[in-house]
């Protein structure tokens, strides 16, 4: 088996338009959640979200590109460019054939669907733009990354709701580890902050109207965000041979299914995913110093996740740090694991633990060190990143400092 390292990272999310600005916001515990600025917001009862701000598509993409790039694809392309440029890789010849792209998304081109349903149903138009299908399809982002950077190996899109990015990155990890690819572009993207997207979530009655406060006793739900995170996963020997800068190593991955309920999480399913990632990495629970939590800020997730951590980590659960950066950028659904992996990279590379902001009251059912409100300096060798999706699909990654 080959070792797998991360040699590039890129992002655009509610905290910043680059990895450096996102790290800075996470270090400072800044909140990227605010009033939603979208069409028909007055008809929504949930009026907040983690929107990507100060973003003008015209600054990044020409008219032809915009005709084909839904907002989730635009975010992906921006993040992929930053990640691939950082890695220094150029995909030509044999390397191009041995490199691919696996991305996670849940809604894909939902904004494009929303706009065009509005055109035909509400405005009564009988004609839509010819590129709606290639623009809205879930694999559009993966395909455009493949086309733009000449990636000719295995490429596909993974859709497992809130765990999409972690499942995608797990596939990329395994493809490089078993030698099926030399390098993989991976991560995920989401852009559901349109009228129809938010309206659908309102119906579940799990959204907060004021803030995302994971693990805090007065938490009252999740807040949706948008954006993308993209990484370059590379064969360690390949990276070393070309003298690449290595951000950290991916050492383990596990996926489990609750096989129980379509929305309620399971402590056992979450615990099995965490133990599976430790086993795949060949490490003990006591080796892990930081867990990036799924931490949605709902009553159901947070207490189930904390119980699962207590179950897997035993007495070490009291000394492990666990934080949810959703408090800052919101829940990016299919893209969330990718943006949250940035917090893991920051912990391993810079020794800074991103905080859980908005934490106001301890909850006896979440009695762990949730790194409340302020970032912390800590030397971390191993970290986990959790994602537990609706439908009971769980995916956990294990990473190591290099």
């Amino acid at each position, binding site marked *: 088996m080959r070792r797998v390292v991360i040699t590039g990272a890129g992002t655009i999310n509610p905290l910043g338009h680059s990895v450096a600005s996102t790290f800075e916001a996470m270090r400072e515990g800044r909140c990227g959640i605010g009033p939603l600025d979208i069409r028909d917001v007055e008809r929504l009862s949930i009026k907040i979200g983690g929107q990507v701000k100060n973003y003008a598509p015209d600054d990044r993409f020409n008219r032809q590109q915009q005709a084909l790039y839904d907002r989730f694809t635009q975010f992906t392309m921006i993040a992929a460019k930053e990640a691939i440029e950082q890695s220094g890789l150029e995909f030509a010849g044999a390397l191009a054939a041995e490199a691919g792209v696996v991305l996670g998304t849940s809604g894909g081109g939902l904004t494009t669907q929303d706009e065009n349903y509005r055109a035909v149903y509400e405005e009564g138009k009988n004609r839509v733009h010819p590129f709606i299908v290639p623009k809205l399809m879930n694999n559009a982002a993966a395909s455009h990354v493949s086309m733009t950077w000449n990636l000719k190996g295995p490429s596909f899109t993974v859709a497992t709701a809130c765990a999409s990015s972690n499942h995608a990155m797990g596939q990329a990890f395994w493809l490089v580890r078993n030698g099926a690819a030399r390098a993989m572009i991976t991560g995920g993207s989401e852009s559901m902050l349109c009228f129809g997207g938010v309206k659908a979530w309102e*119906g579940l*009655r*799990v959204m*907060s109207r004021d803030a995302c406060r994971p693990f805090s006793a007065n938490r009252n*739900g999740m807040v949706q965000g948008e954006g993308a995170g993209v990484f370059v996963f590379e064969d360690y020997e390949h990276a070393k041979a070309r003298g690449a800068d290595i951000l950290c190593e991916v050492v383990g991955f596990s996926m489990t299914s609750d096989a129980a309920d379509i*929305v*309620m999480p399971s402590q056992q399913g979450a615990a099995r995913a965490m133990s599976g990632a430790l086993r795949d990495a060949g490490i003990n629970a006591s080796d892990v110093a930081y867990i990036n939590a799924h931490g949605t800020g*709902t*009553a*159901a997730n947070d207490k189930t996740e904390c119980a699962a951590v207590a179950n897997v980590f035993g007495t070490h659960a009291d000394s492990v740090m666990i934080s949810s950066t959703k408090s800052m950028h919101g829940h990016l659904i299919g893209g969330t694991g990718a943006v949250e992996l940035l917090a893991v990279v920051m912990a391993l590379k810079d020794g800074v633990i991103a905080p859980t902001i908005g934490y106001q009251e301890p909850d006896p059912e979440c009695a762990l060190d949730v790194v409340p409100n302020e970032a912390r300096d800590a030397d971390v060798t191993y970290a986990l990143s959790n994602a537990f999706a609706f439908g009971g699909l769980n995916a956990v990654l294990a990473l190591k400092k290099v």
Partner: protein
Amino acid sequence: MAESVRDRVVRIVAEQALLEPSDIAMDQTLEDLSLDSMALVEAIFAIEEEFDISVPFNANEPDKSAFDISSVASIVAAVEALVAEQSS
């Protein structure tokens, strides 16, 4: 005679519980009726549609909600209050 608020709420609750309206007692709790959180949000949605009202309910903090779901009777009372309040 038009169906009362009580009968309409009971009909909605009975449908979620897979029971006949005549099998529903006013002092029963959602637990007695084996209604889980998903059945509850579906019932609230059906109530909003039936009465054209907006029900303040967040599944993360059911106890803090002004909408009392402790029994069938409390739900009927809450709906009656909302209908009076929101139709005025």
